[in-house]
């Protein structure tokens, strides 16, 4: 496992596309100490590494193809009522680059 340092936490935050202040970095490091301490309890479980990982609590999830039924789309005017900014009959997105 990667050693937890300020640099690792900072890089992790940047990969998640947000910045942490110095205080937030310190708080996160402190919280990691608690997490790793907690994770050590999992290590005490007998035969932990032989267990099959559990993703969902119910094994009966079924995926079926839905019937191809045509439905009315949302009315354009109704949809535009809900957006903060419009241009003609289109949703105006914020300028992202430049």
């Amino acid at each position, binding site marked *: *496992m*990667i050693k*937890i340092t300020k640099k*690792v*936490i900072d890089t*992790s*935050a*940047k*990969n*998640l*596309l*947000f*910045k*942490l202040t110095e*205080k*937030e970095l310190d*708080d*996160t490091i402190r*919280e*990691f*100490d*608690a*997490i790793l*301490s*907690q*994770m050590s*309890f*999992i*290590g*005490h*479980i*007998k*035969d*932990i*590494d032989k*267990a*099959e*990982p*559990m*993703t*969902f*609590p*119910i094994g*009966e*999830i*079924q*995926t079926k193809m*839905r019937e191809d039924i045509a439905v009315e789309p*949302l009315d354009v005017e*109704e*949809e535009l*009522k*809900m*957006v*903060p900014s419009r241009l003609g009959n289109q949703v105006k*997105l*914020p300028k*992202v*680059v*430049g």
Partner: protein
Amino acid sequence: MNYLDLTISEIHQALVDKKVTSLELVKESIARIKKDENNSYEATNFEKAIEIASKIDKVLPEEILKGIPYVAKDNYSTKGIETTASSNILAGYVPTFDAEVIERLNKAGAILVAKTTLDELAMGGTGLSGHKGATSNPYDKERIIGGSSCGSCASVAKCDVPFSLGSDTGDSVRKPAGFGGLVGMKPTWGRISRFGLFPFAPSMDTVGYFTRSVEDSAIITNLLSGHDDKDMSSSYRESENYLEYLKKPNEKKKIAYFKSIIDCIEDKAIVDNFYDVIKKLEGEGYSVTNYDFPQELLNALYPVYMVLSCSEATSNDANLDGVKFGIKPTGKAKTWEEYMMDARTNGFSPLIKRRFVIGSFSLLAENQEELFKRAQKARRIIVDEMNKFFEKNDYLLLPVAKSVAPLIKESSDKWNPHPNFVDNHLGLANLGGFPSLTVPSGYEGDLPFGINMTARQFEEGNLFALGKDVENITGLKNTSTKKRGIK
């Protein structure tokens, strides 16, 4: 007495008998919501609610929810109503569709009056981390009501409405229900569609609800349960008429508890109350025994839940980037990365950012085996042990919490390094997808506390039957601050 102070079934009868109108109920609900002093609400739907109520001139006996006002946690999509999940990142977001459960309630004639506060993005257990600040307990404003479904719980506890929608990933309905003297229900994972519920940790998330009686909880379950094609995790099993279970003696009578948890509770009133309820249940023909749940599995509950939920949340909330919906950065970004960085840095609170970092760290290729996968493996062992428990027993019965609602100044969502199974045992039901119900069981001074019961998957009916028996034993039906005389 005001009709809004009654249970759903009592209000329904009054509507059928024309003793009260839906419009009167909605207007009273709005008046009470306007006086809210607990920070329970995010958004209101007053105009639309009055419009719908005005058109209701008759309620038939089979239209049990028609004309009845309710509120929903602000992590349910509601068409045309700003929905932020109490996070700045979603400020200004107005969904274009209703969540499946909102749609079912609409069709049944229930009237949405307001949206309620929550811990930001439902990722907390105190009710203190929403973007509008702390939500307090109507029984004592110095105390928490618990989270994450804080506003929904406070709203029903003070009779602003007779029921509300919450959501439950770790205990987010059932623990607040204990602190608010309410019935709080988390159904089997897959029993009720989550389409339109903002995901936190989808392998554990369920719809949940607060009511003031077990019968009312069964009424809501009747309406909301059943398959929904729009949710791939929605079960194809037929749902049942859960009210029928309340009309006959409960056929399943084997209860067990974990003495190791009871022994860690220092609050004598809660422990005495628990053993008193057990004794009376035995008088009703139930058998009650201790079950020695392995201590190492109890100790692992908290880290397993936290690692899995943070990891799932990190992934789910990657779409909150300031472009598709919600907050719009004010700075002058030169690249799309800068734009999203600005939105996410300012849109999330420090608590949420910490949780995302923890989740992301657990999912890194170098760490995944030791953290995320290991937590998934532990989950399997814990759930296998619970399934062994259910081979011999029908229900797990435990106090909801080790104390009454804690003081706000003494509450925090920070991790602690010590074993913390007493505060986190309700998460067992989320790890295993089991249905779980909290009912009020007593008071310490004027502060309520509750008992929680968990059953096998899809055995909601028996759970309600046991809940009803506990309700009869304690006599605590339709409890509220109004009934208790608290202003």
